[in-house]
C-alpha cells in the first residue's frame, strides 16, 4: 500500500475529470453566464474486482460522475480511462465496444425498465445487439442470467409491473450483467427499497462481485450500506473528492471534517450509542455548485476553518494506510 499505483494497475481510472453544465442567459443574444460545476476535478482509480463506494449528499455530483464515467454526459475536462483507453476521445464505434465492459444499474427500478418489454425481451436485447449469442441460444442465456440473480426462469414472459421493487432491481442487475461486463456502476441501487429487500440485493451484489471478479462503483448516501459492501470509499462534496481510503478506515476513523460530520449525522440503531455520543450538527445547506466558495468548498460550514482554508483548494493528501483526505489542517486535527 505505498505510493500511487502506476497506470495500468487500474481497470477504470479518472484523471482530473470535470463535468460542467453551462448556464445561458438571453435568447437572441444568448451568452454563457456561468456553469454548474457538478464534477470539478475528480481523480480516482478502480481495480479489477474492487468495490468502490461513493458517498455524498444530494447535489454533490455523485450521479453526474457516474454518468460521466459512462459518457452519458460529455466531459468538460480530464480523462476517463477504461483499461488505459480514453473514453472521452473514443469514436462512437469504439465507445459501443467499450460499453460491453462498462454497465450501469439505476436507482429506481420502477423507472429504469421499459414497461412494454417482458423480462425476456429486456435481457435478450443486449445479447442480440452485441452478438453475444445467436437467436437460438438466447432462451438458454436468458434463463442462465435470471438464475444468476435469483429469479425463477418461468417469470421470463412477465412484464416489469408484475414484479415487486426488489425483483425489478434483480432484473435491472441481470440486464447490466448480460454482457459480462468488467465493471458496473450502480447509482443508489438500494435506496428505493425496504430494509429487508435491501439486504437481499446487497448480498446478491457482493456475491456477484466475488464470483465474477466484477468491479463495482457503488453510489449511495447511506454510509452503513457503503461500509458494508465496499472495499474502498470515496466521499464527495460539491464536485470534489474530499476523502478516500479503505471503507472501515474512512467511516470508523474519518479524517476530513466533512466526513466526520457526515458519519456523526447517521443515526445508529442502538439506543445506548445514539444517546451518549457527540453529534456534529452542520449549519446551513451545501453551497451552490454554480458559485462555489473559494478555497476549500467546505469552509463556510466547517467548525475548524481558518483563513488559509479560504485561500486555495486543498488536494488529497495521504495520511497512512492508503487513506487520503483533502484538508489543509489534516495533521493538526488528527
Amino acid at each position, binding site marked *: 500500500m505505498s505510493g500511487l499505483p502506476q497506470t495500468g494497475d487500474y481497470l477504470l481510472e479518472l484523471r482530473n475529470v470535470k463535468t460542467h453544465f453551462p448556464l445561458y442567459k438571453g435568447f437572441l443574444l444568448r451568452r454563457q453566464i456561468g456553469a454548474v460545476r457538478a464534477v470539478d476535478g475528480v481523480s480516482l482509480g478502480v481495480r479489477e474486482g474492487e468495490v468502490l463506494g461513493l458517498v455524498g449528499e444530494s447535489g454533490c455530483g455523485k450521479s453526474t460522475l457516474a454518468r460521466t464515467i459512462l459518457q452519458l454526459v460529455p466531459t468538460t475536462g480530464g480523462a476517463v480511462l477504461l483499461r488505459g483507453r480514453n473514453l472521452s476521445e473514443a469514436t462512437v464505434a469504439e465507445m459501443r465496444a467499450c460499453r460491453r465492459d462498462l454497465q450501469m444499474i439505476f436507482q429506481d427500478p420502477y423507472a429504469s425498465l421499459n414497461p412494454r418489454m417482458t423480462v425476456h425481451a429486456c435481457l435478450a436485447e443486449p445479447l442480440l445487439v452485441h452478438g453475444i449469442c445467436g437467436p437460438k441460444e438466447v432462451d438458454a442465456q436468458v434463463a442462465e442470467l435470471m438464475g444468476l440473480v435469483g429469479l425463477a426462469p418461468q417469470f421470463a414472459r412477465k412484464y416489469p409491473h408484475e414484479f415487486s421493487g426488489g425483483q425489478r432491481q434483480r432484473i435491472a442487475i441481470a440486464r447490466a450483467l448480460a454482457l459480462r461486463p468488467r465493471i458496473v456502476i450502480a447509482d443508489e441501487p438500494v435506496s428505493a427499497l425496504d*430494509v429487508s429487500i435491501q439486504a437481499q440485493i446487497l448480498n446478491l451484489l457482493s456475491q456477484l462481485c466475488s464470483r465474477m471478479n466484477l468491479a463495482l462503483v457503488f453510489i449511495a448516501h447511506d454510509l452503513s*450500506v457503503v461500509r458494508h459492501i465496499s472495499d474502498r470509499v470515496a466521499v464527495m462534496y460539491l464536485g470534489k473528492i474530499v476523502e478516500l481510503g479503505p471503507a472501515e478506515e474512512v467511516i470508523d476513523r474519518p479524517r476530513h471534517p466533512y466526513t466526520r460530520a457526515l458519519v456523526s449525522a447517521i443515526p445508529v*440503531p442502538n439506543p445506548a450509542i445514539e444517546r451518549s455520543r457527540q453529534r456534529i450538527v452542520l449549519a446551513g445547506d451545501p453551497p451552490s455548485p454554480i458559485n462555489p466558495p473559494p478555497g476549500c468548498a467546505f469552509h463556510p460550514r466547517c467548525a475548524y476553518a481558518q483563513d488559509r482554508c479560504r485561500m486555495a483548494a486543498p488536494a488529497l493528501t495521504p495520511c497512512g494506510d492508503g487513506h487520503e483526505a483533502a484538508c489543509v489542517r489534516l495533521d493538526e486535527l488528527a
Partner: protein
Amino acid sequence: MPLLTVTDLRTHFHTRNGVYRAVDGASFSVERGETLGIVGESGSGKSVTCYSIMGLIPQPPGRIEGGSAMFDGVDLLRCPPTVARSIRGKRVSMIFQDPMTSLNPFMRVSEQVIEPLMIHGGVSRKQALARAQEMLEAVGINDAAQRMRSYPHEFSGGMRQRVMIAMALVTRPELLIADEPTTALDVTVQAQILELIRTMQRELGMAVIFVTHDLGIVAGLCDRVQVMYAGRIVENASTEDLFRSPLHPYTRALQRSIPGLQPKGRELFTIPGLPPDVSKRMDGCAFAERCGFAADPCRAAVPSLVEAQPGHWHACVRSAEIDLEP
C-alpha cells in the same frame, strides 16, 4: 390518563381489486410529552394509522371500519366534524414526508404559517403574523421577517421542512404527528431537523408520534417504539427493551438485516419472501409465512398483543418457546 388512546383501529380501502386491510386492529396509546416511534416497511400501515387519526383518509375508497381514537376524552373518529376540526390542526398537528409537495406553491410562507392561527386562534392578522415570525425564528430560519414573505420554491428542502414544522407548531399543539419528516432529506439536514424536533418538543412539552422506517432514528429520538407489519402491531416496547431484547421474530429479523449492526463482510440476514398481500384475508399471524419459527398455532388464529414484561407487548404466540438470539 394517556393523551391519545387508539383502540382496535381498522382502516380498510375498498377498491375494484378487493378490500385492502391497510390497518387491521391497531391499539396503542401516547402519554403526554412522550415520543412514540412507529416503524415498519412500506405498506405496513404506519402512515394510514396517522392519517386515520388526523381524518385524512379519502372516503371512499377508504373506510374506517372500527375502533376509536380517544384524544383527551373525545373520540376523533366519531365526534361531530365541528368538534374534530377544533382539535385537528390546533391541538394535534401533522408534518408530512415531502416538504416539496406539502406546501402550497402559490401562497407566501407567511400566509401558510398564520393559517392555522387565523382559523383556530381567534387572533388578529397582525398578532398572527407576529407569532408566525417568532415560530419561524424558533425553527431556525434566519431573517424570518423578510423570509416569510417568500414563496416555498425560494427555500431549500431542509428550510421547507422547517417551514412545515413552524406551521404545525404555531398553534402549540399537544400532539405532533410526524410522518417520515426526514426521509426526503440529506443526512446532515436530517440531523438538523431531528435536533429541531427534540428542542421544540422540550420547549412545548408536546407528545410526538414519529413514523419512520429507520431504526437508527428511533434509537435516538423515541421513548417507546411500536413495530407494524401488514397492518397490525407486532411489538410495542420501550426503545431500550426493543433494541436489547426484541420478543417478536419480525423485529429481530429487521434488526439483523441492517448493515450497520452486522460485522463487515458477513452476509446480511434476509427475510425470505415478500410482505403479504393485505387484500387477502389472513387467519393467522401475518408474518408466519416468512418466519423461521412458525408452527401450527401461528396459522390458527390472529395473535393478539400480550404484555410479556411490564410495558413490553408483543404479538407472537411462540415467543416464550423460541430463542431469538442469533
